[in-house]
């Protein structure tokens, strides 16, 4: 029963993400084969990226850029590895801990199922989701490979898909374990996200050309990189992946039997002294509620900024004339260090946009969980509540941008990279307008289609990210223009485009206003 219930939802999600994975791989491979036709063009690309430490640090090493397969791996694999990891941890924490939080497991566990049995069954269902993700990714890749200009055979395609699904498997297992440790779904996802963040940071340092490549074996994401699909397959790297997954799953099943339903292993203090300072009204409440999530995002942004700053100078030093041209396809110009930072700031923009999306989904969950009723049945108007939440969001986003800039500067300055604090702070503030557009679209959804708020937010984010990743190798400007990250100038490599930023901010404000009016007029809606 639990297997079936979990599998149904996991497979549905696996189909969606398998499709996204497959299409991303296909469009990356096809656009390369169309865009870089001659050997000379391909050599120039390889010369630019092949030894570039910044791109290697961000996207992984880039061998065999003269081939479609090699380019595809370099272009898309790190993104898919990260998306797969996020998918894995969110899916498992949602279907394990989330179901328990909602009290649905209590009904099932009141029957003959044991707690360990329930987790094993749910893991079976999650497994079906991963297999779907892998099979669909492999199928689309293999079909794309049939195109003579792409030329990827079926087995390598399936192996590539396996590598892409490997992080999903590992982080599904990480999520399964944190679901036992934490007392709530949100906390379980946060623990798992920390593991992912540390894994990415370790891998980034290993690939940054600082002579620490051995560190790659200290990161689960590094193991996936070491599978080297399509270029120099090394299936032995599957061993640590399988071993880690097995250990995590076994630990999750074991711990499930040792704890109470609804509680976590990590003790959650049931009592504490009250913190009353912020609890004077809806804005103070919003600050108190978003504080844990925002702190996590800020740490992620600050650490990423610092790492990008640290590698920018050494990476920028390797850039030759032709590489600058290549980087410019990603929107980045200027001298080596600035050009590298320009690309890195796109990733920071994605983090800031995720922070924005998190703020709006948190607001919607106040309504869907019925907690908003407690405020709106008192003398608080809907406009005051929503306005307060948006004010907090704007402050959080501005602070995120400044934080990104300041920490990137701190990292770069420690390497004497010759970048100025005002320029990087400005580049940081430049990250805010795309996030504002995302937030505005979310508020619009909150007003007119409340149950679809998170779908709209994360679909828009995923689309914008996909377009900017794939668009680097040449896509129609009509498509590119639909990505908020493409609209953002790659500061500090180029100066911020304040008109474009103004337009993005205005779209965000307009979305928020229309959404706000609709929210004021509609019925409150639960889940």
């Amino acid at each position: 029963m639990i297997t079936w219930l979990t599998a149904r939802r996991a497979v549905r999600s696996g189909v969606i993400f398998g499709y996204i994975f497959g299409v991303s791989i296909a469009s990356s491979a096809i656009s390369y084969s169309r865009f870089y036709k001659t050997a000379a063009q391909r050599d120039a690309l390889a010369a630019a990226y092949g030894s570039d430490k910044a791109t290697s640090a961000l996207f992984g090493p880039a061998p065999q850029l003269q081939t479609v397969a090699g380019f595809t791996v370099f272009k898309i694999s790190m993104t898919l590895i990260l998306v797969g990891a996020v998918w894995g941890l969110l899916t498992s924490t949602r279907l394990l801990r989330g179901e328990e939080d909602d009290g649905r497991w209590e009904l099932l566990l009141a029957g003959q199922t044991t707690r360990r049995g329930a987790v094993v069954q749910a893991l079976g269902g999650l497994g079906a989701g991963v297999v779907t993700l892998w099979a669909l990714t492999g199928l689309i890749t293999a079909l794309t490979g049939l195109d003579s200009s792409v030329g990827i055979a079926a087995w390598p395609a399936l192996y590539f898909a396996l590598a892409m699904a490997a992080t999903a498997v590992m982080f599904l297992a990480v999520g399964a374990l944190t679901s036992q440790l934490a007392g709530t779904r949100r906390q379980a996802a946060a623990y798992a996200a920390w593991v992912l963040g540390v894994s990415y940071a370790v891998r980034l340092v290993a690939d940054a050309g600082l002579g620490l490549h051995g560190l790659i074996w200290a990161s689960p994401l590094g193991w996936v990189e070491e599978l080297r699909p399509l270029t120099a397959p090394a299936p032995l790297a599957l061993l640590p992946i399988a071993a880690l997954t097995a250990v995590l799953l076994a630990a999750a099943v074991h711990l499930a039997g040792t704890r109470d339903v609804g509680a976590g292993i990590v003790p959650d203090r049931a009592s504490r002294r009250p913190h009353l300072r912020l609890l004077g009204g809806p804005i103070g409440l919003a600050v108190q509620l978003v504080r844990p999530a925002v702190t996590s995002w800020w740490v992620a942004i600050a650490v990423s900024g610092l790492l990008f700053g640290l590698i920018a100078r050494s990476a920028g030093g390797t850039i030759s004339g032709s590489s600058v041209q290549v980087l410019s396809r990603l929107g980045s110009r200027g001298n080596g260090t600035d050009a590298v930072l320009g690309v890195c700031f796109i990733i920071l923009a994605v983090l800031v946009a995720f922070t924005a999306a998190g703020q709006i989904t948190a607001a919607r969950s106040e309504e869907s969980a019925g907690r908003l009723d407690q405020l709106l049945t008192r003398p608080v108007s809907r406009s005051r509540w929503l306005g307060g939440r948006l004010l907090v969001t704007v402050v959080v986003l501005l602070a995120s941008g400044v934080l990104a800039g300041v920490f990137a500067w701190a990292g770069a300055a420690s390497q004497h990279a010759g970048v100025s604090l005002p320029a990087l702070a400005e580049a940081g503030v430049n990250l805010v307008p795309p996030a504002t557009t995302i937030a505005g679209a979310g508020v619009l959804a909150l007003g007119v289609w409340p149950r679809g708020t998170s779908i709209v937010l994360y679909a828009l984010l995923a689309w914008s990210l996909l377009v900017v990743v794939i668009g680097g190798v040449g896509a129609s400007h009509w498509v590119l223009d639909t990505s908020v990250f493409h609209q953002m100038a790659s500061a500090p490599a180029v100066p911020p485009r304040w008109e474009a930023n103004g337009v993005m901010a205005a779209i965000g404000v307009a979305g928020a206003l229309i959404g706000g009016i609709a929210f004021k007029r509609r019925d409150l809606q639960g889940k």
Partner: protein
Amino acid sequence: MAAMAIRTERLTKRYGDVIALDQLNLEVAPGEVVGYLGPNGAGKTTTIRLLLGLISPTEGRGEIFGLDCQRQPVEAHRRLAFVAGEANLWPSLTGAETLRLLGRVQGHVDEAYRDELVTRFDLDPAKKVRAYSKGNRQKVILIAALMTRADLLVLDEPTSGLDPLMEQAFRGSVREARDRGQTVFLSSHILSEVEALCDRVGILRQGKLVELGTLAEMRHLAALTVEATFAGAIPDLSAVPGVSSVQADGRVVRCQVRGPVAPLLKVLAGADVTELLSREPSLEELFLAQYGGGA
């Protein structure tokens, strides 16, 4: 004349083809305690959510102390306090933090009374909401509403999850509120609670208000239960005007009488009756009668 605490005019809510509330006309005077009864899905919560402005009516309107529920919700909410049947609170806040927040948002709190309520309901305010049982979470929102001493208390299944001792504490608090002149609108499944507390009772059936009146009025309209024990021959009571549901059990006959009892007494006077009992219907019987469960 002072505005009604609650007044609705043809208040209607439709969801597609489903009519959740149909042309509700209701008046609750200041100081009254009114019970609002109906089975699941009858429209009780819909009525309350309309009065609170959380959802908007398809037709008609509602007022709280003369303030339009849709256009002046903030002003109306200053005069009322609401207790939901399900206490959805912020899991990471403690009980004390929740009470502080809700009190600040409401604007006025009788702090001494709040502390008294915390003791009366035996609540540990240092605990996080996440660690509370359902009953304890319910106590938090009950205290949060009562501590405001609002002019109108709107209570939607307020005692769900409370144990019998706490249920008594709740009844005591509602009586206090009534004695202070506060108005209480109590939607409940617990008929004994409504019977013990309310001056008037409304019964809702499939979105329509089918009865509204004092318990005495409703009993007057409803059937009286009569039980007679005969020593000799048992007369046929089923033909007597106003008499229904005649059941014989040995020498004991039970029946229901609607309207004047004189015709029945006339028949009984001619028979050899050794014992005669009559009693008014309980609210439960009135309620069941409305829903076809007999009475």
